[in-house]
């Protein structure tokens, strides 16, 4: 009798459930995964090497393009690292704006993550709802940064500009009549902060909607409960961070434990899972969105009451205002030197890690005193999470591999850098 052997299946790199360009070589015993070998690097752009050729400021837009589902938060550790090397204090208003957009980005990321995970396991409807809310968020980003996705908004020393006083509105055209436009513009009649506040009032209701669709859904639970269980010890050994670590019951969040910016002034809770399976991680992400919404409300309230500068007044780091630059010789020189030669960062090394939507995102910078980084290393959470793919999917059915990829919340811009 012929011996039955394991067979190998090539999953991706163009599979819709691969969340980008993951090539997964699965060794199967019947329908059971014996070994999973992820091949990554198909989206490798050598961001770290490119940063060595650019001035400190020119690298900011590259950071957006790492994890392209949570854009602005990516820039945060990079500018934070530069600020620590320079030893400059960021204005309080800029810190609040950064925290506000970090949390908006977190919601954006989790909406995409949960929506597409549901799509992967067969719940088509979810992604339509989450993308509806995502649209409001990219509108906020567009109003603030000028770009819907890649904002390049955080700068060493603060943020590029203050929040706009007016939210852009729809206009009547041949596709939208006056009545539609009026309805669309209802939330947009005021400033950006009004729009964000309106969104944060609506958002808990949306979360309830998502939960009615998923949380007690029998199929969703059958696909997620007890899949990809990671124990506390294994999660620490594998270097898990963020929702992947908290899902396994470790209470660890950099926003609480090593607070940066103004997180120590804000009131929020950290959800923690119990079983460490995919379902717990889903619940953690869901609760994180609600908590992020709480933080957004507090930031909006503070930002309304406290106008002020949003970037430092040190023209060796931040450019002078356009008006001053045109009228003052010294400011003109500053402006010219800053944009041709760039910032000079004192030699040293620094690691800045933040609680990214996916886990700990860190930037390790080595400077030798030049106008460019000597070495930049990006520590992305998804890279470490994906490295545990073999361990997590071993012994599961092939269909569960898709659930596990979904729960890791991987984005290839981030994994491959």
């Amino acid at each position: 009798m012929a011996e039955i052997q394991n067979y190998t299946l090539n999953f991706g790199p163009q599979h819709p459930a691969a969340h980008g360009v993951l090539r997964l070589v699965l060794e199967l015993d019947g329908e059971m995964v014996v070994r999973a070998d992820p091949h990554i690097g198909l989206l490798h752009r050598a961001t770290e090497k490119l940063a060595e050729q650019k001035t400190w400021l020119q690298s900011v837009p590259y950071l957006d393009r790492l994890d392209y589902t949570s854009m602005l938060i990516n820039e945060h550790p990079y500018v934070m690292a530069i600020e620590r090397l320079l030893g400059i204090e960021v204005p309080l208003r800029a810190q609040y704006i950064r925290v506000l957009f970090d949390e908006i980005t977190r919601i954006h990321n989790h909406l995409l993550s949960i929506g597409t995970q549901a799509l992967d396991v067969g719940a088509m409807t979810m992604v339509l709802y989450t993308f509806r809310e995502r649209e409001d968020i990219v509108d906020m980003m567009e109003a603030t940064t000028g770009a819907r996705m890649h904002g390049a908004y955080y700068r060493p020393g603060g943020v590029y500009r203050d929040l706009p006083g007016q939210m852009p509105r729809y206009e009547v055209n041949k596709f939208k009549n006056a009545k539609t436009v009026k309805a669309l513009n209802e939330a947009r009649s005021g400033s950006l902060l009004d729009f964000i506040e309106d969104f944060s009032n609506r958002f808990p209701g949306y979360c309830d909607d998502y939960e009615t669709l998923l949380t007690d859904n029998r199929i969703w639970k059958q696909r997620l409960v007890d899949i990809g269980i990671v124990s506390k010890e294994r999660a620490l050994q594998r270097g898990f961070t963020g929702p992947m670590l908290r899902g396994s019951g470790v209470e660890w969040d950099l926003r609480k434990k090593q607070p940066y910016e103004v997180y120590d002034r804000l009131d929020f809770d950290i959800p923690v899972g119990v079983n460490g399976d995919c379902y717990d991680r889903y619940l953690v992400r869901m609760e994180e969105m609600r908590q992020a919404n709480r933080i957004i409300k507090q930031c909006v309230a503070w930002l309304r009451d406290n106008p002020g500068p949003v970037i430092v007044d040190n023209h060796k780091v931040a450019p002078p205002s356009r008006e001053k630059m045109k009228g003052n010789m010294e400011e003109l020189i500053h402006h010219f030197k800053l944009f041709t030669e760039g910032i000079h960062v004192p030699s040293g090394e620094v690691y800045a890690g933040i609680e990214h939507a996916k886990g700990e995102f860190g930037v390790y910078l080595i400077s030798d005193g030049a106008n460019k980084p000597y070495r930049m290393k990006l520590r992305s959470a998804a890279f470490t999470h994906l490295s545990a793919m073999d361990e997590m999917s071993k012994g599961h059915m092939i269909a569960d591999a898709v659930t596990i990829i979904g729960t890791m919340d991987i984005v290839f811009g981030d994994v491959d850098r």
Partner: protein
Amino acid sequence: MSAKLEQLSQSLQDVLGERIVSITNALGELTLVVAAADYSAVATILRDHPDLRFEQLIDLCGVDYAAYGQVGAMLGAHPADQPRFAAVSHLLSISHNWRLRLRVFATDNDFPVLDSLTPVWNGVNWFEREAFDLFGIMFAGHTDLRRILTDYGFVGHPFRKDFPISGYVEMRYDAEQKRVIYQPVSIEPREVTPRIIREENYGATGRG
């Protein structure tokens, strides 16, 4: 936070003693340098000793110090007696809530070898593959040291300072051969902003 760092620095000195090559406290971060021979033993102590307890390895990366502090032509300027390649890892203790940077230099510049930390922290597996792929640092004891980020069949270690930003080969579809071919690069690296290191307090005007 600084009192905590001093406590950590003291415990490190008590526990590791002579194995410490140097320990620096800068910008609110502690950097420990150890010799390559002690590397894995020190890592195990860092993880298991109750006063240290670094349960997690957050990051490991390779660094090439060949052009450090130099401008202009970079290649060949590195003195042969100085160590060139280092592996830098960032450790995190969840129970004590502190961080540590651990740096180890490989002794041989032509064939850098370091111990693998995979038995101590399993999560380091891909980070070491990455450091091998991009810098050519070998990790002795690593069970699966394959390239990870670069193309299948890639030659060279692209993040070394003597590797040009444009690379050596480019890929295109050849209509005659009806397949994708590799050929030498047709572009030249172009430096828009030159790398400059200024003296201290350059351009200081008194009011900053």
